[in-house]
């Protein structure tokens, strides 16, 4: 509880601006990981891995944990530098800046894809007649406001809205009363290769933990404490996703129904109603909006930080409107379901490069050159 420390020693705000406690880090990572993918994940995974989709999701969690270890290993060597500062440090100014720029662009494209998928679902489920760009502008303004307040306030907000995740679980759990648990048999009926293919689908939804690369200098905790926090977050997200996939697998008959429902979770809760409330899915979606907004806010934050680190002495907040504008344009480009596919195809390899390859290479480079940040202790 670092928050308590500064309260107790009485040192006031200035020193502690932009600090995040370890517990807040857990929620930040969770909110970054859980995003727009949650609705379509069961569909995507089940399309490939059939009734073993939940195993694929679990495996995806394991894989993310491996990547997390790599990322953490890199961050531990540079405890007070974010990736944007590590890059020029390790690779020299020119190459470093180039990769920084490509990171910023990568986050931009990823973020705008999330934005596009979000507005697609809003369009389909809640506001069919409202033009997409309006709902996008709405979410972008909200995100700019959230992100513009600085890391501490972002962290506070993410913790504050986290109970929503539990509400979503409760809503989904209720629908399990109509579940048929026989649907998941035979367990392991598909071969390993299919399961791994499903893992690939699920892994994309797990992305978001790379946020750690950029905010770890703000976290007031030891290296091990940070690893614990980020691992807790990953375990939570993996369990969360696995539960969601499992719930929809036992609810829908795998081979026929789930392929027809692009957002299985929504169809599940749409089916039941309470005494005072019908169309529970609308409430589910309204809550889900907040979860999505936090992850869009994340991408916005990361790309704005990237651009800011290219220039000296410009705060990232002044890039927010510009970056948000580009998000909007990029998100308006894909029109149809098909475009998402090609968008995804383009993004697939870049995920590997930016999330796995570059941090891994950086770790190796820093190990080989034995470059590491000098830490002044005491």
């Amino acid at each position: 509880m670092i928050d308590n420390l500064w309260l107790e020693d009485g040192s006031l705000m200035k020193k502690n601006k932009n600090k995040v406690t370890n517990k807040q880090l857990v929620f930040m990572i969770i909110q970054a990981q859980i995003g727009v993918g949650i609705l379509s994940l069961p569909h995507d995974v089940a399309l490939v891995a059939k009734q073993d989709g939940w195993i694929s999701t679990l495996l995806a969690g394991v894989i993310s944990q491996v990547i997390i270890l790599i990322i953490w290993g890199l961050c531990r060597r540079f405890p007070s530098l974010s990736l944007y500062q590590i890059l020029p440090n390790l690779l020299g100014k020119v190459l470093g800046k180039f990769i920084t720029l490509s990171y910023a662009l990568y986050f931009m494209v990823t973020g705008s894809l999330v934005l596009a998928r979000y507005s697609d679902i809003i369009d389909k489920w809640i506001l069919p007649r409202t033009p997409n760009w309006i709902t996008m502008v709405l979410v972008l303004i909200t995100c700019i406001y959230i992100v513009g307040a600085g890391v501490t306030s972002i962290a506070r907000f993410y913790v504050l809205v986290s109970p929503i995740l539990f509400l979503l679980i409760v809503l989904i759990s209720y629908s399990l009363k109509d579940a048929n648990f026989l649907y998941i048999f035979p367990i392991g009926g598909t071969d390993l290769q299919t399961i791994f293919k499903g893992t690939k689908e699920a892994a994309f939804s797990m992305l978001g933990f790379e946020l750690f690369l950029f905010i770890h200098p703000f976290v007031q905790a030891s290296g091990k404490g940070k690893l614990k926090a980020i691992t807790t977050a990953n375990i939570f997200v993996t369990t969360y996703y696995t539960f969601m996939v499992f719930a929809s697998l036992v609810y829908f008959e795998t081979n026929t129904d789930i392929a027809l429902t692009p957002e299985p979770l929504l169809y599940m809760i749409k089916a039941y109603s309470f005494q005072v409330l019908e169309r529970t899915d609308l409430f589910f979606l309204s809550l889900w909006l907040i979860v999505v907004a936090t992850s869009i806010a994340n991408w916005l934050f990361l790309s704005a930080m990237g651009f800011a680190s290219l220039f000296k002495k410009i705060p990232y907040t002044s890039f927010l409107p510009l970056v948000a504008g580009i998000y909007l344009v990029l998100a308006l480009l894909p029109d149809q379901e098909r475009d998402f596919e090609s968008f995804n195809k383009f993004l697939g390899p870049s995920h590997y490069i930016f999330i796995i390859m570059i941090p891994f290479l950086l770790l190796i480079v820093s190990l080989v050159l034995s470059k590491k940040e000098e830490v002044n202790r005491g």
Partner: protein
Amino acid sequence: MKLTSLIFNKSKNKDTKQNSSQQNSQPVQEVLRTLEGNTSFFKQAFSGSDDLKINDINVRNRSGILVYLETMADKEKIQKNILKPIMEAEPNLVEDVLKSTFQKSDNLFHAQRELLNGACILLFEGSKECYMLDVSISKDRPVQEPSNEQVIQGSHEGFVENLLTNLHLIRKALKTPNLRMENLKIGDQIQSQISLVYREDLANKELIKEFKKRIAGISIDYIPSFGYLQELIEDSTWSPFPQILYTERVDRVVGHLNEGRVAVFIEGSPSCLLIPITFFAFFHSPDDYNSRWIIGSFVRSLRFLSIVIAVNLPAVYIAVIGFHFEVLPDELILPVISSIRNIPFPPLIEALVMELTIELIREAGVRLPSRIGQTIGIVGGLVIGDAVVRAGLISNTMIVVVAITAVAAYSIPASAMSDAVRFLRFILMLLASTFGFVGIAFGTMMILSHLCRLESFGTPYFSPWAPFHFKDLKDTFIRLPIWKFNSRPFDARSTTNDRQSMARGWKFNEKKQK
């Protein structure tokens, strides 16, 4: 007045640097040798104002003058406290009488300031010093319960417009030498006195330093009331939420002082400002602590429910009618439909008309004498409410929604917070009428995010929810039993965190013996 303003402007810069040693930094004008000189000094200083009285007196063959402001000084007191003792004293004891009862000064500017506070000045021919005695007229309101913060049980004391009386009330309630009061002066041309009250052993020194820094940084001609002060020192003025709690209740201030917060009094205002404060303090009432804790918790959670209702209910209703009619269950659809079928307006207009009417009734009722106020309430509430429905302008369900919202909004104990809530409602209504549930979700998100970024003198405003402190939830939207309050809340940033240990020690001992 030129002279005074010149003087105060000059002294301003020094004031900001050393507020505590204010007396030293004032300009000095030594007492003049001749009575004529002194007389003309005062006449000039007060620009010959008619209420300045300068009487000649003669005490045992020493001639002198008595200077006072007729409008500030009590003539009876002058007679009783000044003239009588001096005249009746033994000839050789006059000096002693003067020394023991009067305040001495050799600075005419000091005397001038005291005159403004209601002092009477005594000057003798050839003397280097002047004698002053406070004989001000006191026209104080009696200490009574503040009408905007009434409680059912508990103390019925409230602050008045007199600073000393207020400080007396606090001192009387907190009898500890650790209670410290600091006087500060603000205002460039006309100075007002403010008092900083805190517990020396609890209050955070950084916080007090920060407060003094902000006070020193104020440059304003005059501070007429606490609203000015509040706006000059609060963290973010671009917010509907009040970041400083003001209260007229003594017990409330005492409670906050005991948690390590700092109270600020301002001369002439019955309100006390409390810093640093959190969102949740606005929902507390001394009644919560005086009733049983289960009931107290229930009432508190009711208040939080009321803020949710007050902000969201009209918006949700508009969204349901305008966008998501399908969320209503079958049985509800018929009554709602039959109510809204023949209404000519869209739900937003309906809601706006009714909400604005309620706001108008309130605004009209507040400033009227209570008898007319009641009439307005009846005309507004019953007649308009009934008539608009009969006329088919507004639907029945909308009246229900608006009425519930109004009741909910007024159940928030602090009027500043109640105002904020009623204002936010309109924004959410607009969002709901354009985007339905999506608009409400984003509006709520904006509000929450705004609450997360607000700070009150360095304390997170939405603490203990953001940042989250599980232990401090004991006294937020619930109130756990008093014996659970072993530590002071973090948001007050008090220097000693422990408050009590084993508040019910006897119970513990009984168990141990068994």
